[in-house]
């Protein structure tokens, strides 16, 4: 899976979780950029990403990821 492919699939997940078709995520997107992205939605998002990519994200990575770019790094690392 390429980085671009990961972004396309991730964008779909974001739109579903936040119920917002206008969302387009980039490398630097953070919780500050998406209104409803609070600590609860963060876990919903992580679970939705796990379901989309069929692997578990370790808690250490869940609590330390700072932006969508880092989320994609994790997806590419775990999806190898």
């Amino acid at each position, binding site marked *: 899976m390429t980085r671009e492919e990961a972004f396309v699939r991730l964008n779909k997940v974001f739109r579903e979780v936040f119920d917002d078709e206008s969302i387009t995520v980039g490398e630097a997107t953070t919780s500050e950029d998406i209104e409803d992205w609070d600590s*609860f939605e963060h876990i919903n998002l*992580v*679970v939705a990403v796990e379901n989309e990519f069929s692997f578990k994200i370790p*808690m250490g990575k*869940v609590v*330390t990821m700072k932006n969508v770019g880092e989320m994609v790094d994790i997806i590419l690392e775990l999806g190898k």
Partner: protein
Amino acid sequence: MTVTSLGYYALLLVGIALYYALPKQGQWVMLLLLSMVFYFCAAPAYTILFLLASAFFAYVAGIAMDREGANGLSAHRKAVAGITVAAVVLNILLWFLLKGSSFWMVGSRLLHRLIPAFPQLRALPIAGALGMGYYTAQVIGYIIDCYWGTIKPQRNFLKLFLFVSFFPQLTVGPISRYSQLECLYERHRFSYQNLCFGAQRILWGVFKKLVISDRVGLIVSGIWADTGTFGGVWPWVAVFLYPLQIYTDFSGCMDIVLGSAELFDIHMPENFKNPFFSRTVQEFWQRWHITLGAWAKDYVYYPVLKSKPILAIGKWARKHFSKKTAKKIPWLVGMAVLWFVMGFWHGSMRHIAGVSAWFWTMLVVSELCAPLMEKATARLHIDTESTSWILFQRVRTYVIYSLGCVFFTADSLTHSIDHVKTLAGALGSLTSFQGTIAGLGVTYADINVIIIGVLALVIVAILREKYGYARTWMQGQILPFRWTVWLLLFIITVLCGMYGPGFNAQDFIYEQF
């Protein structure tokens, strides 16, 4: 020794001189020595053993995890999980035995009523360690971070012990992560800016505590101590003054702590961000005791929400309710667990059944009412970004917080309920003042000092909101202005601070945890 005593400042002066004079590789040893001197002057000597035990559990767990984790086999992963659980449980048990006595005393009393043969347990006749709630949380965080692999375990026990016992944080935190305090082991160069910023922050903290908090504390505790004399509107005055007392007490101490650390070029995490500027209860808890909230979020809330039972509840809810409603159900459960743990950390039933229950309910009500509120403001054409609406929201948050603090001011759940009854009874006589302010041991001059203090707080809060730190703004001002402000603050603190003969400096409220 407290952080407002002269002995503490003498220790700081000697400490800074030695710290920067020593070879840089030995600076962390100096910090450890200073921490030990502070500890032995501030708490019973034997209680250092509890700190040592906590640090030892964490150290052994970290080293064992490092060895097991390197093997990478699933059997070893299980061993790592076992070590983590054991080390966390041992730390909680130690805290529970010494600081959580009210839980097992209440529990044994209830059991005694059901089974008369069951003994009524009493608190152990030994004191808990200084800052036990704070360092225990830090140690648990360290163990879990090692388990998650977000940090590399510390292989030097004394270095880890410094992380646990670093002296400024032993009074009231903040609850730092290991990754935030790794700077303790680095080499630090003397910087005039650190010295100025640290000293300024300490002065501001002492001003908050000795000039404002202790004065407001006289009024609040005076009213609650004798509600028979101070009836009418007075109990409600105490309710709405208490947040001012606890904020200036806790954040004042935090300023002293962070300022002290800054003198050594150690930058600790902030615990407050203008909490009374919060427009909602949710926002308030992101601005108040930030490090406890962040700790509970990472080590309790996230793991609970990602646990199998909660995920199953979420799945079940999605089948039976709309998408929006289904989302609320695991959130409700997750928040309930989070608030239970926060109440438990405070170490008493009144915190769980009173403070935590109140704020959890308020959070749930505000979350559930949010769509309704949105519709109502739209229909009534209310500009939600207008100054008056923002002010209304801030006052509403202040009122909600003040009411929750009623359980904080009492020393037991029974007394809290008495306070609630007093407040309900006083609702019918809100226009009358029974008892005079002089009877509380404060003069009208004290009231003026409080008013001036609050004005200073508001100005600093506005500057902080605008510039990140009020001192960032101050730095841009001309030298005579800066010196006038700091000298004035120093003189007011010396003249109006409640210390010395005839005064009894009150303990920091959060010191008990």
